[in-house]
């Protein structure tokens, strides 16, 4: 068995003295693990950082085997992103999210989305919006998509400002008014027809509260997991500060 594919590094686990088991999100083969000989070497360690894009050649005698990867760095983003808090937290959270996908199940759209998000991680607010949308897309990819195109009560398609915490469907302003304390806010940038709407830190917090609730209920809790600390760190980093800390400091 042998194939070549584009991949994004999600995680690395040391294997023995010198090798590593690398987890990639590949374009055509989904989330896929493989052994990298010499993966603990100083030459390969910079490449094997989460968030980096690689060209992967996977070889194994049988398809069921773990197999061996030969990797070449294509776009090494991790080093640039490490110094920025929201990006460091974001890569960790993003890798945790993608890890929810079943292994070896192709998700080409998710691959393209993750790559595009990583390329646009510089600005904290837009990185936040990207990750809220990714969480929404992940819910849909796992079969728990929210119905945000029309009001679940009236079928109206305008003024959708709430989401029912029970059904996960959008609720219009008029239909939701009597229960507004119990409904979740739906920020404009998550509405199907207003994807380009501007957003604030408050909108991002609402977005994360929305996706977080359904991720927890449908995906994480059934697996015995909770939200990661990286997610909380990311949300704080993108919503709690107007300006980002620089990773570099003045010498003492």
């Amino acid at each position, binding site marked *: 068995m042998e194939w070549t594919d584009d991949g994004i590094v999600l*995680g*690395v*686990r040391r294997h023995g*003295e010198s090798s590593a088991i690398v*987890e990639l999100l590949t374009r055509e083969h989904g989330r896929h693990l493989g052994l990298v000989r010499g993966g603990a070497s100083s030459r390969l*360690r*910079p*490449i094997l*950082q*989460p*968030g*980096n894009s690689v060209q992967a050649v996977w070889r194994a005698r049988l398809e069921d085997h773990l197999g061996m990867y030969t990797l070449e*760095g294509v776009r*090494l*983003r*991790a*080093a*640039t992103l*490490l*110094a920025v*808090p929201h990006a*460091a*937290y974001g*890569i*960790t959270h993003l*890798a*945790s999210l993608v*890890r929810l996908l079943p292994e070896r199940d192709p998700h080409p759209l998710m691959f393209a989305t993750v790559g595009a998000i990583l390329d646009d991680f510089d600005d904290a607010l837009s990185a936040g919006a990207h990750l809220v949308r990714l969480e929404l897309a992940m819910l849909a990819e796992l079969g728990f998509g929210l119905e945000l195109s029309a009001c679940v009560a009236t079928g109206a398609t305008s003024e959708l400002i709430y989401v029912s915490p029970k059904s996960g469907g959008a609720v219009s302003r008029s239909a939701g008014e009597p229960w507004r304390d119990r409904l979740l806010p739906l920020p404009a940038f998550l509405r199907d027809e207003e994807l380009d709407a501007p957003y604030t830190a408050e909108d991002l917090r609402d977005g994360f509260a929305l996706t977080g609730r359904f991720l927890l209920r449908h995906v994480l809790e059934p697996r015995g997991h909770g939200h*990661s*600390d*990286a997610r909380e*760190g990311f949300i*704080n*980093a993108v919503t709690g500060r107007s300006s980002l*800390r620089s*990773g*570099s*400091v003045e*010498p*003492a």
Partner: protein
Amino acid sequence: MAGSVAGPEIERLIQLLARLPGLGPRSARRAALHLIKKRDALMTPLTAALQVALDRIQVCKICGNIDSQNPCTVCTDPRRDPSIIVVVADVADLWALERANAVNGRYHVLGATLSPLDGVGPQDLTLDALVARAHETAVTEVVLALNATVDGQTTAHYITDLLQEAGVRVTRLAHGVPVGGELDYLDEGTLSAAMRQRTLF
């Protein structure tokens, strides 16, 4: 199939040696044979040294270093600057910095770095002790000497957030070109980090 060439005691010794980092079954066999041949000159003192280490080595209650005294020699050294705490992930990192003679402050060993893949969360690190130490009046700077990996730097940012109220200067090690490194052989990430953090020459 070849049977065992040595008794169970020797096989047990080889099995245990093979668990050491850097040793496989073949090199463990060679080490065991060497120990047996040098019974008086090496095996006896090694056994005694292992026993002493087992009896006396403990984890420092202040910094998490390992030493034969508690608090450790680093924490009790009066020549060290008490205003600086250098945070490292592991005792091996502390030893590396001590080998380099690069630190005159004190240390704090976290025990690991945050890693969702390995199931390591904040509760697994000695963060509460670090925050308490950072709030001591003598401390003015916390240096985050953590790995330049996503896990290491996520941990660094997490600690920075935790120390916001402590009123200390939080710094981290520079990332860039290693001594002896040739630019042509460096990865793009290291090069771009080095370029961004260039200093006045």
